[in-house]
């Protein structure tokens, strides 16, 4: 259909931009306050910063020990996502290729985990992690995320693998490769689109998760960004400039990655959930 940019489209354009500006008001407040010192905030909190100060960011970085929180979040997210992809894709391959009996039973078992709220097992699991001496450790969090996100990961992989012809793997097996090699070298590379989705959705979830890291890591040196910012905000609650600089620091890494990979992230979020 040919298209002409007419008055109607122009009016819609203006309307949508106005909506976006209203939508961005909280972000405007966030950035503005983070750039002001206490006197400027007391004088007029929401006016545009005429003489922006960047001191809040350095202070927030130091007082929240933001560097260590960034490292903790990165290590926990990367390790968990790698494990999820490895463990999940292997299991899904088995489940997708055996649609009856054991394979089907396992599929149903894993799907159950998508619906059940994790709070049902929250206390027994907390006790388990405590007894194993894994509170305040990376390992505890990584095992938790691998287990809790497996159902969703296997669900995504299984759907994708079922639509994939099995001839590729068969050819490799006939050529004398073992099952392990056939999967890792032939099948797994074919899963790249869904692996991208699995990676993005799990990474965003784990990076932003708050409740479990608060329980398992709160007060330890291994706190992730949301937990660290939570206690930071509690401590400096009345110092808006400082708190908001902390929030900007905390949101920046994931927003930056999102802006660079926006096409993939949006695609992952909008396609991965169709089942």
């Amino acid at each position, binding site marked *: 259909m040919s298209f002409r940019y007419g008055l109607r489209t122009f009016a*819609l354009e203006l309307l949508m931009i106005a*909506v*976006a500006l209203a939508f961005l*008001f*909280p972000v405007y*407040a*966030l950035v503005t*306050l983070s750039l002001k010192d206490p006197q400027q905030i007391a004088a*007029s*909190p*929401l006016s545009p910063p005429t003489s922006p100060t960047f001191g809040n960011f350095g202070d927030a970085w130091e007082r929240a020990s933001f560097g260590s929180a960034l490292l903790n979040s990165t290590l926990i997210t990367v390790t968990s996502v790698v494990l999820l992809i490895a*463990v999940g894709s*292997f*299991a899904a*391959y*088995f489940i997708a290729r*055996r649609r009856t009996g054991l394979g089907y039973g*396992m599929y149903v*078992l*894993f799907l159950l985990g998508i*619906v*059940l*709220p*994790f*709070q*049902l*097992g*929250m*206390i*027994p699991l907390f*006790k*388990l992690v405590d007894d194993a001496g894994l509170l305040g450790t990376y390992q505890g969090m990584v*095992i*938790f995320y*691998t*287990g809790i996100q497996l*159902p969703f990961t*296997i669900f995504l992989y299984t759907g994708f693998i079922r639509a994939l012809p*099995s001839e590729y793997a068969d050819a490799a*097996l006939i050529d004398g490769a073992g*099952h392990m090699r056939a*999967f890792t070298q032939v099948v797994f590379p074919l899963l790249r689109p869904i692996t991208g989705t699995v990676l993005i959705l799990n990474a965003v979830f784990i*990076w*932003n998760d*708050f*409740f479990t890291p608060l329980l398992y890591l709160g007060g330890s040196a291994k706190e992730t*960004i*949301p937990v660290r*910012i*939570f206690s930071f905000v509690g401590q400096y609650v009345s110092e808006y400039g400082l708190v*908001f600089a902390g*929030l900007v620091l*905390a*949101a920046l890494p994931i927003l930056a990655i999102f802006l660079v990979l926006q096409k993939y*992230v*949006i695609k992952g*979020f*909008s396609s991965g*959930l*169709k089942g």
Partner: protein
Amino acid sequence: MLPPWWFAVPALLVYAVVVLYPTGTGIVYAFTDWTGIGDWSFVGFDNFTKLWDDDAARGSVVNTLLLTIAIVVVQNGVGLLLALGVHTHIKSRALLRVIFFAPAVVSPVMVAFLWKYVYNPKPGEGLNGLLGAIGLGSWRQDWLGDPDLALWSVAFMVVWQFAGYSMVIFLAGLESVPDNLHEAAMIDGAGRWQRFRHVTWPLLAPAVTVNVMLSTIGGLKLFDQVYAATNGGPGYASETLSTVLYKQAFVFGNYGYSTAIALVLALFVSAISLVQVQILRGREVTAG
């Protein structure tokens, strides 16, 4: 040539330790008076009758449902409007998509802290300041401090963060509507509204299913935002099942009672999503 069974063993092991065993034990504890220390005994359905008699807990069931309904309706309504507005020939469409979606990738706790400022009761701060600046000073409210408003303020904050998420799912649905169907409808003399009602809307059904299910489950389980913004207050005004079961467990140490509330939540989530899936899947059609 089927893959060997041991391909699934690592996944099963982790899943059993992290999900199956704790969930199984949790269900058992829901029928006990376990407090984490000392002996415990089975108390039948006592925890559930206690939930019914406990005003705060019963209120939290109502709050959870109200909050979920508000989020499902408004988030998807706004998401659909945004998608329809962006799925056009406007020049800013690519940028707007990114702007509206961006909050969805940020941690909900941080969004809650930001909105705690936006909802600042002082007349010159946050939303109240903005309302004053545009001449709507009389609309100022104590957004999170007023018991009649707190729950809705939390819902609005969640909608702000995730309306863009609904939007991208609707956009994926809109992109799957073939152009020639619209052209055919136009040739047949269908107006804008008729084309939306009879061509676009039926084909959006799968996107509606995904969006409604996602926001329902998210709404029922909502915790981080409520915890960070109001912690259930003022009083019990914005208490939800998630915050009540959290407090029963980690503030009062009533582990048995807490898991009973979690079981009620689990039943709500399963029952509601099961009904939804039946209804929503039934109205899905394809363009083929």
